[in-house]
């Protein structure tokens, strides 16, 4: 069927997982196995090789940005080139949000990386094709978060919690 993206992984060159989003229900045990296997396969690739490879019954589209590998698994019939563009769009969003994003940003603010991803993709599909629109929504959501967080800490500070 038309399920396009099965999962997306972000991992470092040392094989440390930085983000994983699964778009189909998969058992925890299977997730771990697949992640381990796939990381090995991708990390073994040489620099000038194709961004696409066949793995199990899926197509893997990956791209390395500095020290991070962005890796998507898509179905047989998919358009790999547009998936590359999806990955690139996600990187641009992270970059805009964190300001010249690097791996450490994603490590120490992993939950924010997830929030951005979840604003960008749903069920493996793009929610909005406008970069501006996605960034604005995240900005607004962050404001809302701050509002709901701050009254508590103010009270705490005053010792009235």
């Amino acid at each position: 069927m038309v399920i396009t993206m099965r999962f997306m992984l972000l991992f470092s060159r040392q094989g440390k997982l930085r983000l994983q989003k699964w778009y189909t229900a998969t058992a925890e045990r299977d997730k771990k196995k697949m992640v381990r296997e796939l990381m090995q396969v991708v990390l073994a690739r040489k620099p000038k090789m194709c961004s696409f490879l066949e793995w199990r019954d899926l197509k893997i589209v990956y791209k390395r940005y500095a020290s991070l590998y962005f890796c998507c698994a898509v179905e047989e019939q998919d358009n790999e080139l547009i998936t590359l563009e999806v990955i690139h769009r996600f990187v641009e969003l992270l970059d805009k949000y964190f300001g010249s994003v690097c791996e450490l940003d994603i490590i120490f603010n992993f939950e924010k990386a997830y929030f951005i991803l979840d604003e960008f993709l749903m069920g493996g599909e793009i929610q909005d094709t406008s970069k501006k629109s996605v960034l604005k929504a995240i900005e607004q959501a962050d404001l809302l978060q701050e509002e709901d967080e701050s009254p508590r800490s103010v009270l705490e500070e005053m010792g009235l919690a």
Partner: protein
Amino acid sequence: MSPSVRLQEMIRVIRGARTQGEERGVIQRECAAIRAQFRQADNGTRSHNLAKLLYVHMLGYPAHFGQMECVRLIASPRYNEKRVGYLGAMMLLDEKQDASLLITNSIKNDLSHNSQYVQSLALCTLACMGSAEMCRDLAPEIDRLLRASNSYIKKKAALCAVHIVRKVPDLGELFTPAARSLLCEKNHGVLHGAVVLITELCERNPDTLEQFRKVVPELVQIMKGLVMSGYSPEHNVAGISDPFLQVRILRLLRILGRNNDTASDAMNDLLAQVATNTDSSKTAGSAVLYETVLTVMDIKSESGLRVLAVNILGRFLLNNDRNIRYISMTSLQKIVQTDHNAVQRHRGTIVDCLKDQDASVKRRALELSLALVSAVNIRSLMKELLLFLSSCPPELRAHTTSGIFNAAERYAPSQRWHIDTILHVLTTAGGDVRDETVPNLIQLITTATELHCYTVHKLYRALITDISVQSLVQVACWCIGEYGDLLLRGECEETEPVQVTEDDVLDALETVLQSHMSSPATRGFALTATMKLSTRITHNVDRIRSIVSIYGSCIDVELQQRAVEYNALFKKYDHMRYRGSVCGAPSVIAKLPEYLLGGSGEPVPSSGLSHTVPGPATSTSGGDLLDLLGGLDVSPGE
């Protein structure tokens, strides 16, 4: 201290651990603290504790004790807590956990929350891990949101509906009307979601597909608008206006146009326009062109349009970007049967891709090259394939040899070419060929009667050069045993003859017999060949006799048995050895027992010998006897 810093502090500490053991220790302590915090009353740190737990979970440690905390946080009125709670639900809960049902009510409430960001959380989570039951429960709510909300929510509701339909296909009918009206929206996000939803509905229900064929003109208009529109900064990617939306529309058009002339006609012009006007200098444009090609090839397009599509693929083959070359070949592979001539035109470029550095590209090029082999191009293409074989990656060798043999069998222009080709493959990659190669080659050689002299010379030369490739050595031994007399005669039309003495030949066979590189099967071939030569040579029969008798006490049981039988032939049936207790029938192979063909197996009882007919001239029919030895004086076929 701002709560977020506590999370980051923990991350720092974990990263600071120098060993796996140290890390485990830190994490155990943190988890214990988190657990304790969860048990306490609400103290304002719940969301941060859950966030910590999620980090730990990502490192691979168990975190199921956080599941109930997710449920609690989702029910909180505070956005910051809901946000982390829902994230936790997506990471820790899936539809198989019972706890996931507990959040259904929260999701239901949050779907009608007055903050769109809360609604968004609920929609996202439902689309991520909603079970069939949850989907059934909440579908009417999603439908409501599809119709009456702002663009921000509509686009998310559309994608959520996609998930629902995947889980409960029957619910597709519920969403069809709303999906239809969404096509009138201007917002790109909503349009995109609508197109994805409609695609899903059409793929699952043929009636719905029929219904949506009517919107082809509308889709064509939307595409035209995108392609012809001026620069729109918000949706522009490398000069292409919203490539993501374009690709989705093209995909939907593909599904609608498939097997339907009317629909295909309606989109023909648009496809030609997109194919011609899209700038493919960057990936975004190539992605749109690629989707266009896929659509053109799948619907009932005019032949002119098909040619245009194949030419685009041909252009892609010349692109500097390896990714584009790769996907081009993937597509060409799919159409190589139906549009064979069109693809043949690009054979040169495809063959060049055999030399690409990337193994994936090489594999694609190999598949395509094999599919393009024809009687017309067999000679030139085989040269390229053999060249490829000599340097191809190990994981592709077996497939390559197999493909080469199939191609040679189908299109060999001559028997000599065929034999040469197989020999070339054996020399280059003899270890990666199928098991049947040896008997198949023997069969081929046997039938090529005018080439026996040529073949035995060639194989002899190969044998004295290198005895490591078992398949080659086996065939060489067999050939020498069978046609050794031609070798010794020293004349040959087809090739430079060599001066070979009987001793030279026996030396070669003995080398094989004694080499530790030779497998037991190979030794069997060598021994049998040595024996066969006893009927073809004149001066060195004693040498043969002694070789054979040595192997009579060989530790390898099969070899020993053979040697013993041959010895017996020398002693008891010497008079028949020449006259041929057995005839050399042309279709020798059919009669040869498995073990003589190098197959491993239990020693076959020497039924051959027991069938030998005592008596000089009567040659019995080849069918009864084992045809172990080819007789000089006996005419074949008797």
